[in-house]
Each structure stands twice: as structure tokens, then as C-alpha cells.
């Protein structure tokens, strides 16, 4: 992995060696860190998802030990058990949790797009002098704690909360609305928390767009709505895709929002995993839940990486 293609540099032999070593370290140090703390942990999750739960600390029967070598490994492979996966597919609770997570994430992503697009479009059309300020105002909430922003909505949405107080006082409704602990509250929470992730890539593509194309379409007799669908929207598609993935992928595994806003009856897989781990202390099942969640997300994540790589190539 450390086989680096370093360009020949116009320097002496001694410093060339120093540079070659430094060049290799630039790659090796972060590489090894990510291998150890990002890739290896996934393999451990995979391993533990194949082992049996046990009442011990840690609460699983080890599937194999690294010290046992190849023979131990082969022996252990024979003992791998798919019980946890059979258990997951047999219990409708888990399947429903996956389906409902995907559904909630998909609906929230569409809603975020609907809210975020006009905002990003408005920002891109704003006078160039105030655009940096608007951009900073979109980024700023991202810097404040996710937990705090979700928490803020509890006080607004609860039955005696600020939204109901306002609606009752203005006479729009005469019964308090039940929003907290419903899917609506989760949708609001996700749209609110992830809005900057949608607006930023949309703004980046819309700002670069040549507006004279829209004017040309209008001059040629296209309606405003027609011009939007035939010119603006297709040109902003890379931003739409990037924004939707940035919202959808983390939303599927979201824990804080369904836990604080969704109440006890909402089923989302991030919450299920958390409960399996912290409440039931069933580490193997929690690991199996994580493995399947990762399999569900692997396609969107790969598309996201492809989009990222394309952007890099373009900017190069």
C-alpha cells in the first residue's frame, strides 16, 4: 500500500531519501490509523455478529482469537453461527424497523429537498455582495450542537409547547395539535437538522449556473415553470443528488431524532441498535443489526463516493 509514485525532484540524493520517507509517512500514518480504527472495527462487528450471545463480560462467546493462528481461525469458521441473522429475519420487529427507517429517511429527504431548493435558489440569485453572508448564515447552525437543535424542538412541538400556544392564541386551532412523538415530529426534526447539508451542494451548483440560459428559454416562449423544469432543474441535478445522499444516508441510521422527537412507538433502526446494545446488552444481535444496516447503505454510500470523486476530478 505504501508503494508511492513520487516525481523525481531536483534535489540532492540525501534530501531525496528524506523526502521519499516523508512522502511515504504522509500516506502511511493516516492510512494505518484509518485501517486500525475504521476498517478493523467493522471486521470485528462482522465477527461478533456471527457469534453467540453469552452472559459474560464482554457479553458474547468469542468466535475466534487472533492468537490461535490459521488452524484456530478455520476451527472458528466452523463454529460461526448465523443464528443472529436468522433471528433478525424471523422477527418482524427488525424488518419493520429497517423498512420504516428507509421510508422515514426517504420522505424526509424529499421534504428537505422541497424546503431547501427554494432557499438555495434564492441565495444563488441574491446580489453577489450579500452571498457570502447568506452562505455563512446557512453554515452557522451546522456548528451548533445537533443534540441542542433537536432538543429545541421538544419545547416547540409538545402539546403545551410554543407552537400550540401560538396557534391557540391566534385562534387558528381550538384543540392543541399532537405533534411530538409522531412521525411528523421526526420529519420536522430531520428536515431541520439536515437542511444545511441539502442547501450547500444545491447552492454550489445553482450559483455556477449561467442564468442567461433561462432567459434564452423565456425569450423563446417557454413559461417560467417550463424553463425551470427544462433548464434550471436538470442543470442543478448534481447538487440535487449530492444533497439527497447527504441527507438520506445518515437519516436512515439516525438515533437522536427518533429517540427524542419520535416517542416510544416509532421504529427506526438506529434506535433498535441502541436498545439492543444498551438495554438488552445483546452485543451479537446489535452487531448483526449494524451489518445489515451497512449492507442497506452500501449502495448509496458508494454513489456518494463516486459523486465526491467526480467533483474532485472536475476541480483538479
Amino acid at each position, binding site marked *: *500500500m*505504501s*508503494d*508511492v*509514485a513520487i516525481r523525481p525532484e*531536483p*534535489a540532492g540524493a540525501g*534530501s531525496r531519501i*528524506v523526502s521519499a520517507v*516523508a*512522502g511515504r*509517512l*504522509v*500516506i502511511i500514518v*493516516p*492510512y494505518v*490509523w*484509518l485501517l486500525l*480504527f*475504521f476498517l478493523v*472495527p*467493522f471486521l470485528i*462487528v462482522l465477527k461478533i455478529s456471527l457469534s453467540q450471545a453469552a452472559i459474560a463480560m464482554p457479553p458474547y462467546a468469542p468466535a475466534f482469537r487472533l492468537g490461535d493462528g490459521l488452524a484456530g481461525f478455520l476451527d472458528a469458521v466452523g463454529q460461526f453461527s448465523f443464528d443472529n441473522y436468522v433471528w433478525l429475519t424471523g422477527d418482524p420487529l427488525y424488518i419493520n424497523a429497517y423498512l420504516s427507517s428507509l421510508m422515514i429517511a426517504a420522505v424526509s429527504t424529499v421534504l428537505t429537498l422541497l*424546503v*431547501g431548493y*427554494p*432557499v438555495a*435558489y*434564492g441565495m444563488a*440569485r*441574491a*446580489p453577489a455582495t450579500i452571498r457570502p453572508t447568506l452562505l*455563512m448564515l*446557512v453554515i452557522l447552525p451546522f*456548528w*451548533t*450542537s445537533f*443534540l*441542542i437543535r433537536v*432538543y*429545541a424542538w421538544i*419545547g*416547540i412541538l*409538545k402539546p403545551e409547547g*410554543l407552537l400550540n*400556544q401560538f396557534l391557540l392564541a391566534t385562534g387558528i386551532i381550538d384543540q392543541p395539535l399532537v405533534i411530538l412523538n409522531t412521525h411528523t415530529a421526526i420529519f420536522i426534526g430531520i428536515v*431541520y437538522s439536515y*437542511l*444545511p447539508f441539502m442547501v450547500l451542494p444545491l447552492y454550489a451548483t445553482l450559483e455556477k449556473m449561467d442564468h442567461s440560459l433561462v432567459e434564452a428559454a423565456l425569450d423563446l416562449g417557454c413559461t417560467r415553470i417550463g424553463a425551470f423544469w427544462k433548464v434550471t432543474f436538470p442543470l442543478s441535478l448534481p447538487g440535487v443528488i449530492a444533497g439527497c445522499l447527504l441527507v438520506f444516508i445518515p437519516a436512515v*441510521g439516525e*438515533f437522536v431524532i427518533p429517540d427524542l422527537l419520535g416517542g416510544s412507538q416509532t421504529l427506526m433502526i*438506529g434506535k433498535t441498535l441502541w436498545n439492543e446494545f*444498551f438495554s438488552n446488552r445483546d452485543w451479537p444481535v*446489535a452487531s448483526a443489526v*449494524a451489518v445489515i*444496516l451497512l449492507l442497506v*447503505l452500501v449502495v448509496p454510500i458508494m454513489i*456518494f*463516493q463516486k459523486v465526491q470523486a467526480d467533483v*474532485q476530478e472536475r476541480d483538479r
Partner: protein
Amino acid sequence: MNTGWSRFNVASVAVGFAFLYLPIVLLVVYSFNASKLVTVWAGFSTRWYVSLIHNEGILNAAWVTLRVGLLSATVATVLGTLAALALTRYTRFRGRVLFSGMVFAPLVMPDVIIGLSLLLLFVALGFDRGFLTITLAHVTFTMCFVAVVVQSRLLTFDRSLEEAAMDLGATPVRTFFQVTLPVIAPAIVSGWMLAFTLSLDDLVIASFAAGPGATTLPMKIYSQVRLGVTPEINAVCTILIGIVATGVFAAALINRRRELQRQRDEHAAMRADG
């Protein structure tokens, strides 16, 4: 023909920003509420801030969070900058696809998966869970954000500056420290700030990585939120928002000043040429 900012554009930006900011504003306002009920206004008071000073649980958690944040952000900045350099400067090396995959994946990976997998690693390695494991976990996921921030700066970097330095006899290592580093320094600083705030905010990964020994502020806030909304939590949140907002504004001001200075220098240089 409309070339500027239509009324619809202005309205959608205004509504969008109101949606983004109103909940935070309400949270801050109600932290100064005299009543114990968060949603009933009973006059201005700073009593919740005073009571915070005597809340040892929260103060301890804040201290842990601050130490984890400072340490993990610093390590993550070094590793993230190296990763960014590796990705932009070495377009071909074995395992590059895996490497860039490992840098970008944590940006979208659900927290619960990162948290669970790191916890299982720490257990497998026999680490005592606590301050150290939270810090390691935070370094791992925040270094990827640093890498992305620094990388975007490196992509727009004018490489002819480096080539000039090397033509004049500087070694690549010296070129990096005297030419490259000063130019990408603002991106490294914002990367550090991003890593620090992400560490400060993280609940899920810290909950997995922390043993019974260490509690961070978000974990403390979360356990109290589950018991109900209280003005005291609003006060903690307001202080956190205040710290982050001050930091971000200060950084923006400094950046703007540097930018203006740079423009003035350029103008001066051009005049000197002419």
C-alpha cells in the same frame, strides 16, 4: 426582464432562515425564564445560570468534554491534513481507492455504526473505556472532516509556488513548511475548529466509547433531556451556542481581515510594478 432578486427569492430565503434560526432563538430566550416551566414565560431571570455553577455533574462533564475536544481536535488536524496531502499529492499509490473510501465514508456513516464498531475494537484490545477511548473515537471520525476541508483548499492551491521554491533549491520538506503550510493554514485552522465542535457535540459515538468512568456534556444533557425539558438545560445549551458562535464569528472576522490585507498588498505590488 427580471435579472435580480425576485420577491419569491427573497421570501424563500427569509422563510428558510427563519426556520433555521427561530428554534435556537426560542431556546436561548427561554433559558432566561424565571419559571421552572420552560414554555410559560414568567419574567427575566438568570437563576438557571447561577444554579449551573453549583451543578457538579454538569461541570465535571464539561471539563471532560473540553479536554477530549482539545486533544482529539489537535490529533485529528494533524492526521486529517496528512490524509488530505496524501489524496491530493499522490494520485497513484496502491490502496488509494480504499484510502479515499475510508476518508469519505465516515462523513455519511451513521453514528451508531461507528460507535458500536469502535466500542467492539476497544473491548477486543482490552482498553479501559473512558477518556482515552472517547478521544481515540473522536480523532477517527473528525479527522475525515479535517481532511475534506484541507483537501478543498489544496485543490485550488497554485503549485507553481512550490515548484518555484524547489527550483530555487529548497528541499520538498522545507518547501512544505515554508510555502505550502502558510498558504493552507487558514483551512487547517477551520479544520481544527470543525473537529473541535464535532467532538463537543457528539452524543452517540461518545456514549458507545465511554465506559462508566467518563461522561461528556452531551451525554449529561441527553440523560437530563430524557427526564424532561428544564430551563437549566436551556442555560447549558445557550452557553455552548454562545461559545461556538463567538469562535465562528471571530474566525470569519480574522479571515476577512487577512483577505482585505492580501488585496491591499496585491494592489500595492501592482502599483509598485507600474
